[in-house]
Each structure stands twice: as C-alpha cells, then as structure tokens.
C-alpha cells in the first residue's frame, strides 16, 4: 500500500470567528488508494459539463464511437464551448433530453452502449509544441476546471499579462480527499501538467497552494522543489478554497468585486486540472477523473470513474445498494446539489459523491426563527451580512441588497452551516441576487 499522509493532521478546519468544520469524512478517505470503477453497460454523457454553451452533438443514434473520441463540440461554436468525448468504445443508442443534475434544466445526453472497456488514448501524444498548439490540445481534449466549477481551462490559459500561476491544492471541501491522493499517487504527471500550464501562460512564477504539512506528501514535495515551484502552506480552513480568497492568501492581493484573478495578474487552476492537462498532452481526452465517495456504509473511497457512469453503478460496484441511501450530494457537501435519482451520471465537475442513509437526519429539516446571533456574518469569508441580506431579499429591497453587496456572496454555505436556527441562507441570497439582476425569483 502506498504511504499516505501523516495522521496527525487536524480534526477540524477553523473558520473566521473560531467556527469549526468537521473533516472526519476527509480523514476517513485520505488513506484509501484510488480504485478504478469499470464502465457501466450504458453510459450517459451530458453534453453540457462546463460553464459555457452546450456542445453540439457530432454523432447520431447507431454510430460507433471509440474511447476518447469527440462526440460533441463543433470548432465554430463559442470560445467557451468545450468538446465532450466518449468514455467507452461502443455504440450510440440514443440522444435525448434529460434534467441536468446541476442546473436542473433540460440538457442533451448521449447514451452509449459499452462494447469495450479498454482504454487507449484517442489522440497522438503531443511532443514539443508551440503555446498555441498546447492550448488547442487542452481544448480539444475537453479539459475543464476539475475543482467543481468546470470553467473551460483553455479560456483561463488564454489570459494575457499573467505574472502568477497558483495551483489550488487546498481541497478545502470537508468530504473530499481525491486531490491529496493524486498528489501521492501521480506526482510526476501533475507536475508535468503544472509546468505546461506555466508555459502556456508565459510565467515562471508558480505557487503550489496546499494545506498539507511539510512531509505529508514527500515525493510530490521533492518534485516541486526540483521544478522550482513555490509551496504556499495555507492555513487549514474551508473558505480559502475560493480562488478569489486564495489569491489574497497567497499573493496578498485583493481581487476587486466583479473582477477575476487575471485582473491582478494571477490565474488559479485546480491541481486535478493540471493532471488532466498532462494527460491531454499524452493523447487522453478528459473522460475520467478521480473522486471521493463517502457514505457511512462504504466509508471513504477514492475512485477513478469515467464521466457518464451512473451513480447506481458505482454504488453497486462498491457492494452497496442504491436503496440504502436517502439522498446523494454531488461534489462538495457544503455547496453541491443532490441528485433526484440513481440514474444520474458522474460529470466532469463531480469531485465527490456523498450518500446519506435515512438514519442520517437532514439537519435543516426543522427551521427555527432567526435570533440575529450574528454567527453568519462572523463566519462569512467575504465579510457580507447574510442575515441582513436574507431580510432584504424577503422584502425584495433591491437598494438594501446593493448596499450590502449581495453580488459578493461566494455561495460557500458557511452561513447556513453555522446557523443555530438551521436557516438555509444561501437560497435566500441567490434570490437576492436575482432581485438585483432583475431575473425571475425562485420560490423557496
């Protein structure tokens, strides 16, 4: 068994105001080596797996597809479009609409019948190449940010005037451990990817931001030093995972409201994205990723899963039954949505799956009256006033919402997490943002 990080790391993350976030799920997963989950008989590949327009399908029912072959995404589509690839060799059975697991809106899905699970890179490895060729390969391989937001990587790498590249290995979500596992198990590929990113951006000032302590990932740290990549040890907390706050933490530069890190000359990429970039250069399309699955029944598991694999298939593979669980959260347990049923597949953005049994009471079921304790504004990492915003959102008071800077909410969920009255403030804040933008306001 490959050596894991030291066991003396903290039991909790510490947030503003001294509030603690329990990281026992992470702790239980951190020593589990990656297990590859074989593809399901039927794979369901959503054509919208990134921020930006849905990729146009390039296949039709009955077409044969190969592992890693592009099945959607036309060259002439918007710059933000990212192609989608087949995770298996097989036949397209159907293309249809289905509610998207994240947006809830209808999205197109390509159903592929798996005929062969063998993996063989679809593209030729890319040798020494120009920045543009590297960038084109990143896009062609369908690489998007794997930290959860799934922003097109080629767009971020196209930024000009970048002085700093920050690799976000903070993995601040309390239920995820897959990034640290990747650092332990695939250090060389990750560092190759980081270097390629630096090359494309034209910067040698690269900082690897991690919450791990010195010596927890020795091989990886040795390679970082050898590659002249700085290590920034970030204090162990949840909120600094946000890229805007990470820039402040690492560079002591504040990204102005409404702007993004490139505005202060920085680009932030997730560490798993660096691995995807490296694999893209080897000819691998982004059709699989590492994720952490946690449930009381299975414990913490780090899995290597192909996009399009239905969640029920993963559960069965682990010896659990989909009926063992009452709700399943995608990605972060602080920010991720739940899936409505077991048929939903893993997407590029799925960094984790957390399955809760019916005996694990949903904490926000019984909402109490607000007592104005101020816990929410104490813990808020961007220093806004969630309770005041909630009141303004309820009244539809746009002037007040603007005064209180509703636009700066990063949706981290900490305000709800600490609320002693179990009030879910984030949906109210989203409604407030909709009021300000003049969008339709959802009912709660």
């Amino acid at each position, binding site marked *: 068994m490959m050596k894991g990080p030291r066991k003396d790391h903290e039991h909790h993350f510490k947030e503003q105001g001294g509030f603690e976030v329990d990281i026992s799920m992470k702790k239980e997963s951190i020593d589990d080596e990656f297990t590859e989950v074989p593809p399901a008989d039927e794979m369901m590949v959503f054509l919208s797996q990134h921020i930006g327009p849905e990729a146009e399908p390039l296949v039709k029912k009955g077409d044969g597809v190969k592992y890693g072959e592009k099945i959607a995404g036309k060259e002439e589509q918007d710059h933000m479009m990212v192609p989608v690839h087949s995770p298996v060799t097989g036949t397209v059975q159907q293309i249809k609409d289905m509610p998207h697991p994240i947006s809830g809106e209808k999205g197109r899905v390509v159903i592929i019948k798996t005929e062969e699970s063998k993996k063989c890179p679809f593209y030729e490895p890319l040798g020494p190449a120009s920045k543009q060729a590297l960038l084109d390969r990143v896009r062609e391989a369908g690489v998007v940010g794997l930290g959860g937001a799934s922003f097109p990587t080629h767009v971020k790498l196209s930024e000009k005037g970048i002085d700093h590249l920050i690799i976000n290995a903070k993995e601040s979500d309390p239920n995820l451990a897959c990034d640290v596992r990747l650092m332990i198990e695939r250090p060389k590929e990750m560092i190759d990817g980081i270097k390629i990113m630096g090359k494309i951006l034209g910067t040698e000032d690269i900082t690897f931001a991690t919450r791990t302590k010195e010596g927890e990932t020795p091989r990886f740290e040795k390679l970082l030093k050898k590659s002249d990549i700085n290590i920034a040890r970030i204090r162990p907390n949840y909120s600094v995972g946000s890229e805007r706050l990470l820039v402040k933490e690492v560079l002591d530069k*504040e990204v102005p409201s409404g702007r993004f890190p490139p505005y202060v000359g920085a680009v932030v990429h997730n560490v798993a994205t660096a691995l995807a970039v490296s694999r893209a250069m080897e000819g691998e399309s982004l059709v699989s990723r590492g994720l952490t699955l946690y449930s009381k029944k299975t414990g913490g598991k780090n899995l290597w899963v192909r996009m399009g694999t239905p969640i029920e298939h993963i559960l069965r593979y682990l010896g659990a039954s989909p009926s063992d669980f009452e709700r399943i959260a995608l990605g972060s347990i602080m920010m991720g949505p739940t899936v409505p049923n077991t048929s939903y597949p893993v997407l590029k953005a799925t960094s984790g799956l957390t399955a809760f049994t019916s005996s694990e009471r*949903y904490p926000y079921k019984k909402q*109490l009256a607000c007592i104005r304790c101020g816990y929410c*504004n104490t813990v808020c990492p961007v*220093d806004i*006033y969630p*309770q005041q915003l909630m009141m303004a959102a309820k009244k539809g008071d746009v002037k007040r919402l603007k005064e209180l800077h509703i636009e700066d909410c990063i949706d981290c969920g900490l305000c709800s997490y600490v609320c002693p009255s179990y009030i879910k403030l984030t949906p109210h804040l989203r409604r407030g943002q909709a009021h300000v933008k003049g969008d339709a306001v959802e009912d709660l």
Partner: protein
Amino acid sequence: MLEEEKKARPYKVVNPPHVHIGLDKNELMLKTFLLMSIIAYASVMVMGLQALFHILVALGTVLVVYNSVTAYQRWKGVKPTYDSPGSPLVAGMIVGLAMPLESPYLVTVVVAFMTMFVFKYIQGKYLDHKYLNPVATSKSIVLLALYGVATLNVFEGALQGGMLFHPHHYQHNMMGGFADMMGFFESAFVDTIPFFGIEISATQAHFFWQPHGWIGSGMGIVVLVVGSIAVYWLRYKWRIVVSTLGTMTILAIVAALVWQNGDISTADMITMRIAFHVFSGSILFMAFFMATEPQSTPMPEFSQFLFGVGLAVLTFVFQLNGFLGGSIIALVIMNMTTPLLDRIVIKKPYGHRVKSVVD
C-alpha cells in the same frame, strides 16, 4: 419522465449544505442557562435563600406562561412558538438574577410574566423580530410605573423595602460625595466573608461578596469569569461586552480623577469607582447576559461597539444622578437605536477594500 428515471430510485432533493455545525438554538439556550446557574448558585451563597426564592419564582412564572401558551397553541393547531423551554428558562433566569434582593416576590412575578407573555410572545408574534430586550423592557416599565406610584407616595412602605429602584439612592451625591456614599454602603454590605472569616471593605465586596443590589451581582468575580466563558464559548456579541465594560471603566477612572477626596488616594478612588461603576450587578451582569441579547442588538461589528459605548455613557449619566438601576432603561433606549445602528458602519466586504482600476 424518461424510462431511466421511472426505473431509478428517487432520492430526496435538498439544497446544500448537507451538514451542520451541530450547535442549535436550543443547545445554545441550555448552555446559557447552565452557565447562569453557576452565577445563581454563587449569588444564593452570598445572599441566601431569599435570592433562591426570587429565581425560583421567576422560573416558575415563565414556565407557567410557556406551558399555558404552548398548550393553547397546540389546542388551536398552531405551531408552538418555542419547541423547547430553553429560551423561556433563560429569560426566567435573567429575570431572577436581575431583581434586587429586597424586591417583593410579586414584582418578580409581574416582571417575569410581562417578559414572557408581552415581550417574548406578543412582540415576537407581531414584529419581525424582538426589537426590545424582554427582561429589560418589562423591568423598566414596572420600574417607571412604581416610580410614578412612589412620587404619589402610594405604597411608600413597600418601596422603602426595596423594589426595582431605590428612592433613597437619590440622597447620595455621586459626584463629589461618592466616597461618602461608599461609606454609607458599608452598612449594607458585610465586613467579613462568612466561612472564610476574611475581612473586606465595601469596595472589595463589589468584587467578591455583595449581598446588596441585583441578585446576579452576588459575586462580581464569578459573573466576570462565567460571563467571559459564555462570550467565548457561545460567541455572544463580545464587542458589546467589551465596549460597555471598557467605557464604564474609563468613565469610572475619569470620575475618580475629576472628583477627588482629600482623604483618599487617587489609586483608591479609582479602585472604588471601578468597583462600583463596573462591578455593580446592574452593569456587570447586564453587560454579559442582557446587553448581548441577540435579537435586540446590532449585527454590524462596529455598530456593536457604538451600542456598548452608548449603553455605558447613558448608564453612567443615570448613575451620576443617583438613578442606580437606570442601566436597564439605558439598555431599552439603546435597543431602540438598533435598527439605525444596523444600517450604519457596514464593514466593506472582500473586493471593496481596493480600488478597481478601470481598464
């Protein structure tokens, strides 16, 4: 619905986050109650069974109101306002600890009833939150009503026995005659701590053994320690405590320097002033357990400091004029400023502390 979805097992769909820190309102109230019980225990040690009866009377009254209203709400098919007796018990304990020892029990019952029924249930039902501190407002109303009665010389005897406010405090000159007043207090305080046999002055009594005044002030030092633990552990609005007690300390020092007494050294005057202005129950207990009541106090951080400073200044002005129980009226006045304080001095969020240069 698609075939796959029809076949698939449905899951519960909920918004994130999917976990909670684990500390809820009821637990918060229970812990507050337990911490205040330590203060109550200390006060009963100092003040005796009369203090215990006040506390029990206050707790009993709020529980009667709570159970009656809850039963009525259930009978009417309405969701009970309180799903546990935690918050009512805390209110009852505060009433008990905020009463002067000599107050008639009937006054304690009236204050506890008003606190629970009028300022917790009715205020909570008709307003979007509680704008006024229930205990402070109830006590202020009773105090002012009795003050009116006192001026008309009705029930004079009962008032002399001590209710919420002591007309005899008016005779003291709290400015130049402060040292004399403390001397007068010597008679109301013990000079030796029972069991230990330690001799103490009126000044020291304010810190350690104070059998006069608010029940919650029996052992000032215990209130200070337990209050500090509560602020840290339960994350009360600490800025209010710090600014109230800090301002009172500064004002006490200033007063000691301005109104000196030739027979007493400046250091002793300062100690005496701090003992009285900071360690009286109406200040110390109030600062920790009443002024931090979350609903009626501001949320922005700087506004909490302003609230505490305002509370201390008003209280000090009342004290200088011989109105020694005036801190609760000061608190009600400051509660009224909370909606305004909520709107001013909002801290700048991340992203607004730098100038965004237009490209």
